[in-house]
Each structure stands twice: as C-alpha cells, then as structure tokens.
C-alpha cells in the first residue's frame, strides 16, 4: 500500500487532504496520508496525520511506496516545489475527487489535482501539476499548461489553450477557442472574450490587460 505526502500545510493543503480522504473512503489508495512542509513550518499543527519536513521525507519513507502532491495555489511556487520533489526522484500522485466528472478521453498529467464537483470534458489535456479548484468546468479539447491553477467556479470555453504557470481567478469565464498565454493572471469575476498574451494581468468584463505580470505572484503577503 502506498503513502501520500501532501506538500503544503495551508488552506489548499486542507482541501487536498479532504480529497485524498474521500478517495480513500471510496477505494483505499493510501494507507497513510501525511503533510510535508519546508523546515520552517515544522512547528505548526497538522490538519490531519503527522507533519514531516521535506528534508526528512526520504529517511522516513521508502521512496518506492511514496507519492507526493503539491498543495499550494501559487503557480510559481507549485513549479518550484514540483521540481524540488522531482529532483529527489519521488513519484507524484494525481488526485481527482470522487464527485468530479472526468471524460475517459481526458489526459491528466502527474501531480494534477481536480477538486470536488468539477467537470473535465472530452479530449482535455491537463499537463503536469495543474490544479483545478472546486465546481469548475473545463470544456472539450482544452489544453492547460503545467503548474497552472484554475480557481473555484471558473468556466473555460471549449477548444481553448491556457499556458504554463497561469492563474485564473475565482468565478472567471472565458469564451471558447481562446488562447491565454503563460504566466498570465486573470482577475476574479473576469469575462474573457479575447486572447491574452503571455505575462499579462487581465481583468474586468470584458477582460482587458491591466499590467505586465512581472512579479509572477498572485497572492501578495498581507504583511506588506
């Protein structure tokens, strides 16, 4: 039996843990689910199970029976953590909540997360480490690039392409047959009618480019 390490102990980590527990309820996949964090977060109380530093993971667990899932919502950080785990030679899990409807013709890469009540339609390609949040609909023939995060209640129209490390905000809607570049941020509630080039922050209805996405960070620290 395998073990699942959830890398990230924040809010999304809790949701990902609940998905894993629901998957296990339906059909047991892992005999242990635990949290993995960077050293400085070791003192925090885990939401479930035990908490292990990423540095100690390989001494605590057998690499062969171990799977990791990246549970952070910031695309740039998703990529960084994914590459770190990959370089350690650890395998990735793919987590799909049992309540989702996933087409048999959809391709889900390693490390993909699909949160509850989401729909992934025919011939969709979700590249490695993509995160689809709750109640989101991904239409047919859509390709979503690695490490990209699609938030809750988003609808992506069919035959579209979304680049790597992009963030689509809460409740955004995008028209069919669009191309949204890599490192893009689409603000929450946006209605996207036109293509968005790479490295752009766009928002509004109709969505318009606002700034260049230089910092690449979606979530700014509240301390700033």
């Amino acid at each position: 039996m395998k073990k699942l390490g959830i890398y990230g102990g924040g809010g999304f980590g809790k949701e990902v843990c609940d998905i894993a527990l629901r998957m296990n309820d339906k059909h047991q996949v892992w005999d242990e689910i635990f949290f993995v964090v960077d050293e400085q977060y070791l003192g925090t109380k885990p939401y479930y199970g035990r908490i292990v530093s990423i540095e100690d993971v390989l001494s605590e667990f057998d690499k062969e029976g171990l799977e990791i899932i990246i549970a952070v919502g910031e695309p740039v950080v998703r990529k960084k953590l994914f590459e770190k785990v990959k370089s350690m030679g650890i395998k990735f899990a793919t987590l799909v909540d049992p309540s989702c409807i996933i087409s048999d013709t959809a391709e889900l890469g390693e490390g993909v997360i699909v949160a509850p009540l989401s729909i992934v339609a025919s011939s969709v390609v979700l590249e490695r480490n993509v995160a689809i949040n709750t109640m989101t609909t991904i239409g047919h023939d859509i390709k979503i690039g690695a490490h990209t995060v699609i938030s809750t209640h988003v609808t992506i129209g069919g035959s579209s392409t979304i680049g790597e490390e992009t963030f689509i905000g809460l409740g955004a809607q995008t028209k069919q047959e669009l191309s949204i570049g890599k490192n893009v941020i689409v603000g929450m509630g946006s209605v996207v009618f036109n293509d968005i080039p790479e490295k752009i922050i766009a928002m509004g209805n109709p969505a318009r480019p606002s700034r260049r996405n230089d910092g690449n960070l979606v979530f700014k620290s509240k301390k700033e």
Partner: protein
Amino acid sequence: MENKEKYDKAFMESFGIDESALKDLEYNSIPEWDSVGHMGLIAAIEEEFDIMMEMDEIIDFSGYEKGKEILDNHDVKM
C-alpha cells in the same frame, strides 16, 4: 473643466487621494494603485475624455506624468 483638471480628478477619485499626492505618482507607489486600481483609473480616464486606450498604452501607463504623454497621442492636450 480644463483637461488637466479632468485628468487630476480621475486620479483623485479613483484612488481617494489629494492633489498634493499627484506629482511623481507612479504605479504601485501607493496601495490603491495596484493592478485592480489601475483598471479603475483607466476606465475613469477613458470616460472623462471619451477615448479608448490600446493594450500597449494601458500597460505603458506607468505614472501620472507618463499618462499625460499617452493622452497627448489621443489629442488630449494639457
């Protein structure tokens, strides 16, 4: 109202700031002028002068003074 007054009003109303804060004001120099505030400012300026800015102009609109140069291309003289 003169163009300069309209331009200043768009900034002051969008960001809730005084006239004294306008000179040398740049994107991200105050919390109110972030990417969301920017779209509010652009909408206010477009409405005030009945113009429509292009994507490159919106992105290049990096400060109070730079904005004047961009509006000059739309025949808004200050």
